[in-house]
């Protein structure tokens, strides 16, 4: 029904997809598996018309097609349900289902009765017992997903792509979702299901497709496969992984967390983080591995004082209990956080290098209320030298620098505070291989100088390259804690995968 041949996609130097050829059959559920960055989302975005520039061909029902935008793909019969749902919270279910496709009466006004009736029929078919006039914003996430599926059915899609549909819904809602998928199969639709939850896939998938580093590794019938085999295929690497020689153990604990929990707002009994406890020693690099949604970023944010009101638990810096009301307190106590999204949370892109580097330590640069330009320049020059930041001058605007150099600036900004604990969230995301190595080297150097470091990453090779110890997080809890010599890729990945059964 839907066939792709030799699909290749580049993103400014990085190959996201490399010569992928696949076929999607009607009445079958195809599970697409792969690590973060394997190319799953990229492929789906090409299929659904979000990305329009690519090499290779798409054949739909035997004819070659090219989609100019998502609407064109929808009209042909390919719908995608994104992880971030595309609904308008302020409109009702009916209004959302018919958004852009409203039914009109003969005089051109909205035919609300007809739309409501069709919406009701669709909801009944999908077994969602909610009034179609309910505002989508008042629905639970699982119900919102069903509304998205209803949208896909309204346009009689033949291919329905679901991107991590069960990542934000409860067990019971997942059961309903599977019933719906079974119904779609009976209607001879082709379903493409992207998920990390391997045990779910065993329940509903007919075929598996494994992607790794943008390439098609293997595909075949799901029947007879074991979870271990799938994990092996997801992870198996040709490159030799550089492993860290673990630093000497038994150093003094400079930071620890006890029973840290963060409840989820709005849903009592549900937690973003539950009973997290760990410690970091002087000069130790703690790696935290986990998949998206595991709660790693939230953990760092909570430690840094961003969720002070909701969190419970104990944080100790240099064995003294501390209580942070905001990042300012955390900074004063000697913590530093290099955020995941450097452009959004780490830098002021419109300001220059030296202003950005000086941002955290301005109080040490002022005399009687006046800022000393000279001290600011000296500071930035120091770090430009030490971290080998490639910039024309301290006055260059940060947004004009490469990702790797931008990341070094964020790092410099925090090193200037002379922290006790440095937390890095996905420090090499979107950075080329050379800059990655530079940053790994820097991190090891800093640890050697006695800094405690936490590195959060979803890239296994990265964790293995720099961590002394690895924590694996899954669904807000710590599932495993291993010294580096015991941390094999398969073991880490298995611990990171959430269970739904």
């Amino acid at each position, binding site marked *: 029904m839907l066939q792709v041949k030799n699909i290749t996609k580049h993103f400014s130097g990085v190959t996201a997809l490399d010569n992928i050829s696949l076929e999607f059959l009607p009445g079958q559920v195809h599970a697409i598996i792969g690590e973060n960055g394997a190319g799953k989302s990229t492929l789906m975005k090409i299929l659904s018309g979000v990305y329009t520039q690519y090499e290779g061909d798409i054949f739909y029902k035997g004819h070659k097609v090219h989609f100019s935008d*998502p*609407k064109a793909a929808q009209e042909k019969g390919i719908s995608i349900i994104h992880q971030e749902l*595309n*609904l*308008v*919270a*302020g*409109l009702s279910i009916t*209004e959302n289902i018919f*958004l*852009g*496709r*409203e039914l*009109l009466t003969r005089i*051109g*006004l*909205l035919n*609300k009765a007809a739309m409501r009736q069709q919406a009701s029929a669709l909801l009944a078919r999908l077994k969602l017992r909610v009034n179609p006039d309910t505002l989508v914003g008042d629905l639970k996430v699982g119900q919102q997903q069903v509304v998205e599926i209803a949208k896909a059915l309204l346009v009689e899609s033949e291919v329905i792509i679901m991107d991590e549909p069960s990542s934000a819904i409860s067990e019971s809602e997942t059961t309903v979702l599977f019933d719906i998928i079974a119904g779609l199969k009976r209607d001879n639709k082709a379903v493409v299901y992207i998920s990390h939850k391997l045990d779910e896939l065993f329940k509903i998938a007919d075929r598996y497709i494994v992607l790794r580093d943008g390439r098609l590794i293997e595909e075949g019938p799901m029947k007879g496969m074991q979870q271990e085999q799938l994990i092996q295929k997801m992870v198996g690497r040709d490159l030799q992984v550089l492993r860290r020689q673990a630093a000497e153990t038994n150093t003094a604990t400079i930071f620890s967390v006890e029973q840290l929990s963060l409840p989820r*707002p*709005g849903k009592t009994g549900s937690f973003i983080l539950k009973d997290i406890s760990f410690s970091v020693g002087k000069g130790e690099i703690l790696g935290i591995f986990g998949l998206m949604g595991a709660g790693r970023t939230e953990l760092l944010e909570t430690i840094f004082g961003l969720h002070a009101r909701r969190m419970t638990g104990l944080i100790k810096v240099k064995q003294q209990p501390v209580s942070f009301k905001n990042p300012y307190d955390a900074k004063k106590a000697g913590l530093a956080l290099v955020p995941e999204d450097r452009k959004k949370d780490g830098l002021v892109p419109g300001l220059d290098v030296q202003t950005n580097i000086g941002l955290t330590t301005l109080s040490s640069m002022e005399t009687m209320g006046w800022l000393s330009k000279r001290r600011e320049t000296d500071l930035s020059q120091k770090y430009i030298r030490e971290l080998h930041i490639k910039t024309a001058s301290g006055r260059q605007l940060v947004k004009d620098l490469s990702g790797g150099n931008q990341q070094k600036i964020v790092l410099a900004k925090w090193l200037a505070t002379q922290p006790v604990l440095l937390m890095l969230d996905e420090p090499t995301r979107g950075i080329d291989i050379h800059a990655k190595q530079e940053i790994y080297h820097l991190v090891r150097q800093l640890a050697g100088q006695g800094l405690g470091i936490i590195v959060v990453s979803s890239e296994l090779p990265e964790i293995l390259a720099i961590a002394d110890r690895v924590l694996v997080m899954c669904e807000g809890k710590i599932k495993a804690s291993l010294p580096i010599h015991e941390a094999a890729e398969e073991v880490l990945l298995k611990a990171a995968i959430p269970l739904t059964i």
Partner: protein
Amino acid sequence: MINIQEKKQYLRKFQSLIALFLLCVGISLFSDKFLTVTNAWNVMRQISVNICISVGMTLVVLTAGIDLSVGSVLAFCGAVTAGLIKHGIELPSANLYIEFTLTGGILAGVLIGAVLGWFNGWVITRFKVPPFVATLAMLTIARGLTMLWTNGFPITGLGSKFALMGTGWLLGIPVPVWISLLVVVIAILLTGKTKLGRYIYAIGGNESAARLSGIRINKVKMAVYAIAGCLAAVGGLIVTSRLDAAQPNAGTSYELDSIAAVVIGGTSLSGGRGSIAGTVLGAIIIGVLNNGLVLLNVSPFWQQVVKGGVILLAVIIDKSGTKESQ
């Protein structure tokens, strides 16, 4: 099976109405001239211009935009109509003398309003100029155009027929009230029963979802600003007719009153939430407030302070409501 949340939502819809009720009760305790029929029509007539402008402003704000130019556009369109009715178009150099009928003049004024509004929308969508900046520029431009057109002097003596628009009575109800009523009814039909209305809410609620649903965002936005310009023109006609003069400085600060009405009426400045009915209620509250303060002999300067305070209060209460529902 109504739980606490739903009860709260229900109450919120009526909070403006309750506020208005309390306000009326309060004022009537201090002034016996308040609860009279004459006074009631006074208030309705005074707010009729604001209602016209505010309806247009509501549509713009629903798309997460803003229109600061309505006051100036009101003045310019009023002046255009007045000038055309009185003098027509005279270009001696080109030997051009066009006389305008009353209807022609009115239509021309409304059309100019639509064009200026459409221009706002064009600048905002084509060049991605933030609505605040684009309409701020138009505020100045339209005021300048008004000065140019009127040469700085009021245009007066527009005839008794035209004066009907602002001073006439029909079936015991002032004509401006009829006009604003018509505008409100059409607007409620538009937002509730047409594709355009639906799209306005969708764009304000989640522009990227609207775009991915194939909605022509730019076309909708241009239409919305054009409507706002149109309605500003209608307001201008009422003002000009009532004063029997097109004043060069008419409409100054009218945009503030209209934003106040929109905000008090519960429409969110970030778009996607709100209603025409809410805005009308907001305009009535402001009108009653103004009226009450005058009847109580409060200095007009205090009126400013009170009005500002009420706007703040309304938004704070509204914001605290939404936070809970999340």
